[in-house]
């Protein structure tokens, strides 16, 4: 257990110095999965033990030859199942891709391999990342390691659960409206949604392109910075990738921050209002109390357009989804219904059998928002509200270095509690969607607990200010004093 609880930034060094054997490490990871997976259901596809051990042995040989290099050499990593992995089944949590084996690696997976990481498994998720609880997965819900009766959040619930269960130290998630930050908050882990365009989306199975980013997840801020160093790179295969080099986020963590005067933190009043439970509010205020002082000023700030962020987000996300998911026609890949008939009949039946209810609901609503007669009223209007939200953030960042609020308005809820009420589930995203609409970086770090149930603090920064965001997160993490947490299982 000891080696499994090590942070990735220490593990990498211990491996390269020969203090830890990669074969032993991978063996322990595998044993832990065998022990816990039946309880947690965090994994959709686990690579075979023999494959993993063979890779570990080859890596040990490289160390002996003196040829080992890479930021994550021998470090076990989990990858969300909507990120393409060459030769490893990638289902997106859906029946329609149940047997899909990608012929290529997503850019982020290529970068992981280049730095020597060992991909252990593909993690469970809401079907097509549509959900906030990992309950819409075709492969059954993931359970929260802190309380097995409760959800781990979503949609990257499997990635968060393998971290909180002490299986691997690093995982990749994707965040369209909070899907990295929500499960991080619900499992007392750390998850970052980078600035739109910082990390390549090539090989990420699309849900809503204009909103989503792949994000690093870990049990502490330093490991998140380490994983961001690996995956953040310009990619000519992604038309929205931001050109140019990226800073060394680990290096920036080790330096004191240079900010004129004191650090100004804005507590967003709209994020502490209606819909936020008293318990969450209490934990956030207590955490902010620990943070303030010593050159950190916290002041309330209002971003009035955020009241409209949730409906604007859902209109845009569902519209993009209805267009993106048109590709699942049962012809080039994926499931096809076994019936005879013409194109329309087979296409409709394939999608009837291949998609779950939430995916159908979002395709239908997106089709509605884009359809003739409604386009101006819904989709176009949502894009205009998006502009107002962007402007509000720009204004706020003139005065504040970062903005804060809760990541989730409520505590992790019971499995089955919200799944039958779509609007109640959508309300869970009320704190997170605005960062996606504005394209800004946002992170969730542990703020505290109510009993054994975690609460996450969300910190948001201006676009491309990940260095500042991570540095501040590290300071907050030190002051709050919660890191490297593993649920007692």
């Amino acid at each position, binding site marked *: 257990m000891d080696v499994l609880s090590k942070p990735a930034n220490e593990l990498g060094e211990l491996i390269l110095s020969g203090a830890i054997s990669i074969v032993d490490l991978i063996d322990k990871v595998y044993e832990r999965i065998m022990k816990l997976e039946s309880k947690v259901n965090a994994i959709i596809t686990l690579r075979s033990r023999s494959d993993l051990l063979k890779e570990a042995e080859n890596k040990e040989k490289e160390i002996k030859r003196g040829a080992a290099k890479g930021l994550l050499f021998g470090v076990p990593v989990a990858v969300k199942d909507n990120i393409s992995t060459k030769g490893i089944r990638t289902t997106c949590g859906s029946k329609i891709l149940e047997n899909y084996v990608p012929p290529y690696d997503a850019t982020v997976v290529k970068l992981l391999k280049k730095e020597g990481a060992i991909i252990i498994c593909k993690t469970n998720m809401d079907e097509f990342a549509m959900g906030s609880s990992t309950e819409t997965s075709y492969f059954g819900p993931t359970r929260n390691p802190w309380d097995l009766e409760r959800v781990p959040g979503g949609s990257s619930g499997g990635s968060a659960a393998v971290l909180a269960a002490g299986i691997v130290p690093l995982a990749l998630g994707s965040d369209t409206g909070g899907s990295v930050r929500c499960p991080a908050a619900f499992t007392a882990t750390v998850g970052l949604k980078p600035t739109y365009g910082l990390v390549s989306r090539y090989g990420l199975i699309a849900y809503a392109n204009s909103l989503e980013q792949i994000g690093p997840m870990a049990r502490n801020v330093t490991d998140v910075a380490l994983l961001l160093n690996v995956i953040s790179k310009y990619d000519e295969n992604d038309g929205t990738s931001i050109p140019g080099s990226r800073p060394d986020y680990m290096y920036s963590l080790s330096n004191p921050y240079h900010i004129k005067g004191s650090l100004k933190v804005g507590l967003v009043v709209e994020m502490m209002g209606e819909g936020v439970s008293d318990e969450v509010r209490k934990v956030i205020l207590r955490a902010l109390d620990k943070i303030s002082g010593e050159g950190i000023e916290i002041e309330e700030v209002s971003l009035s357009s955020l009241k409209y962020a949730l409906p604007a987000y859902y209109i845009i996300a569902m519209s993009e989804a209805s267009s993106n998911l048109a590709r699942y026609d049962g012809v080039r890949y*994926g499931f096809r219904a076994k019936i005879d008939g013409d194109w329309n009949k087979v296409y409709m039946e394939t999608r009837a059998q291949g998609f779950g209810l939430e995916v159908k609901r979002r395709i239908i609503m997106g089709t509605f928002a884009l359809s003739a007669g409604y386009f101006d009223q819904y989709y176009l209007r949502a*894009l205009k509200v998006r502009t107002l939200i962007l402007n509000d953030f720009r204004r706020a960042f003139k005065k504040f270095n970062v903005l804060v609020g809760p990541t989730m308005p409520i505590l992790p809820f019971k499995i089955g509690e919200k799944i039958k009420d779509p609007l109640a589930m959508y309300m869970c995203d009320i704190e997170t969607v605005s960062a996606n609409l504005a394209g800004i970086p946002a992170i969730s770090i542990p703020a505290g607990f109510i009993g054994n149930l975690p609460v996450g603090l969300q910190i948001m920064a201006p676009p491309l200010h990940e260095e500042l965001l991570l540095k501040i997160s590290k300071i907050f993490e030190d002051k709050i004093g919660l890191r490297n947490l593993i649920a007692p299982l």
Partner: protein
Amino acid sequence: MEKLLEHLSWLARVKLCNYERKLLVNDIAKIMEFFNRLGEIDVKDVEPTTHVIELVSVFREDKPGKPLSLDKALKNAPSKEGGFFKAPRIL
């Protein structure tokens, strides 16, 4: 509402069973109400945002890359014949 749902189900090419239709008719009404909240906010003279990061169109050099082999491209196809995807008939 039933008629609208039927129309949307056809446009989206997603067949719905009776149970799903019953649920979704109810959901659509509620979600529309939720969407309608945007009617409260004044968006006069506001430009829509489709992309948050201002980027110019990126072009790469017109050099052929390495395409997937025929075998690999067809590997995931549920139905194929003679090196082609086999699709249902159009008419």
